[in-house]
């Protein structure tokens, strides 16, 4: 019997999800034993035209990492969706927008201005910025359109499963591979991680959630045994899905929410605002104003990994004029 076919792709991503697959170490050989990898740009030399030539639904499993930032990424997402029986949003960017979706606090015009015009390392006297189409002596060159707004994979195509994390930890990757290999995939729509919050899984001592001041890291050395939130350090654990193995907490760093919202929470950032508001002890207008000021970067803290997936989706601002 022919082996099942697996594809892996990266859109607006950093390659960390691909490396996480390789972090399975010798188990990667088991994956290669049970499946044929038919597309994986970081590791194998298949081109887009190879995928285009495949029959629809001939790929059994597609692990798609990265957010949708450009028309090329949208096109490949749709292509792989058509060719794949099972589409997995793999990692925080594909699931929720991830770090690239912090770009939704700005837009294409501002990003191009900063990157191509203002950045001190530029030598761009003509002020050239990328164009979707450029005439050269020999013909025409094309680049994908850079969208104003970053989207999640599920906002562009249908997705069967969600594997969160930045990147997904090896134990969860192996769980997905085993479930696929033994035909025991969970119900469509499942998030393959814990159903508890990170707080539920955290073994730090929790006493009383009442705080009067928020601390930035240079203002405090947190007790590694006590709840970070109770020590006044913003930790996204109460509004974040568990299953990560407490990687940041064990390094005495607060959670930043890369596993996205827990079950039944639609908007991770709103849930975090609610948490902070409910434990912050302030009685006067002045105290409350001071506390609000102490949250240095609300959007970037509460929506660090899930802005594209949130109800806000982006900062309200006029769209960039013109196609590019």
């Amino acid at each position, binding site marked *: 019997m022919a082996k099942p076919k697996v594809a892996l792709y990266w859109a607006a991503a950093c390659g960390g999800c691909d*490396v996480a697959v390789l972090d399975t170490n010798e188990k990667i050989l088991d994956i290669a034993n049970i499946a044929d990898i038919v597309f994986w*740009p970081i590791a*194998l030399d298949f081109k*887009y035209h190879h995928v285009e030539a495949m029959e629809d639904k001939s790929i059994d499993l597609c692990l798609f990492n990265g957010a949708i930032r450009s028309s090329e990424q949208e096109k490949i997402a749709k292509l792989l969706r058509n060719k794949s029986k099972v589409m997995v949003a793999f990692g925080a960017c594909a699931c929720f927008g*991830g770090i690239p979706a912090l*770009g939704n606090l700005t837009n294409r015009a501002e*990003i191009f201005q900063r990157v191509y015009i203002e950045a001190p390392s530029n030598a761009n006297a003509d002020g050239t910025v990328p164009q979707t189409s450029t005439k050269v002596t*020999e013909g025409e060159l094309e*680049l994908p359109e850079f969208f104003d707004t970053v989207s999640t994979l599920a906002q562009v195509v249908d997705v069967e499963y969600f594997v969160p994390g930045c990147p997904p930890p090896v134990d969860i990757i192996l769980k997905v591979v085993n479930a696929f290999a033994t035909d025991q995939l969970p119900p469509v729509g499942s998030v393959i991680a814990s159903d508890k919050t990170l707080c539920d899984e955290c073994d730090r001592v929790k006493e009383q959630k009442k705080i009067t001041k928020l601390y930035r890291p240079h203002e405090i050395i947190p007790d590694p045994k006590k709840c970070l939130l109770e020590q006044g350090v913003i930790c996204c654990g109460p509004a974040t899905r568990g299953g990560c193995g407490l990687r940041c907490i064990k390094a005495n760093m607060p959670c930043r929410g890369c596993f996205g919202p827990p079950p039944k929470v639609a908007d991770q950032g709103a849930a975090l605002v609610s948490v902070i508001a409910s434990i912050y002890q302030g009685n006067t207008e002045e105290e409350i104003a001071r506390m609000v000021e102490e949250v240095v970067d609300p959007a970037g803290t509460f929506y660090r990994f899930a802005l594209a997936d949130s109800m806000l989706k982006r900062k309200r601002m006029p769209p960039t004029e013109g196609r590019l």
Partner: protein
Amino acid sequence: MKKVTIDPITRLEGHGKIEIFLNDEGDVANAYLQIPELRGFEKFCEGRPVEEMPRIVPRICGV
């Protein structure tokens, strides 16, 4: 003019595309390397607290 497109460039970190133009003799007239990828860290890191940078910019490249 005939055009050969290599898309995507593989087995490296990041996205790339190569366009090669051939003249009538079939020789390379010109070749272009294009990077069809940008996320905009230069812009969206502005406004984020400095202490958060060590947990944002590693996502420029996770390889």
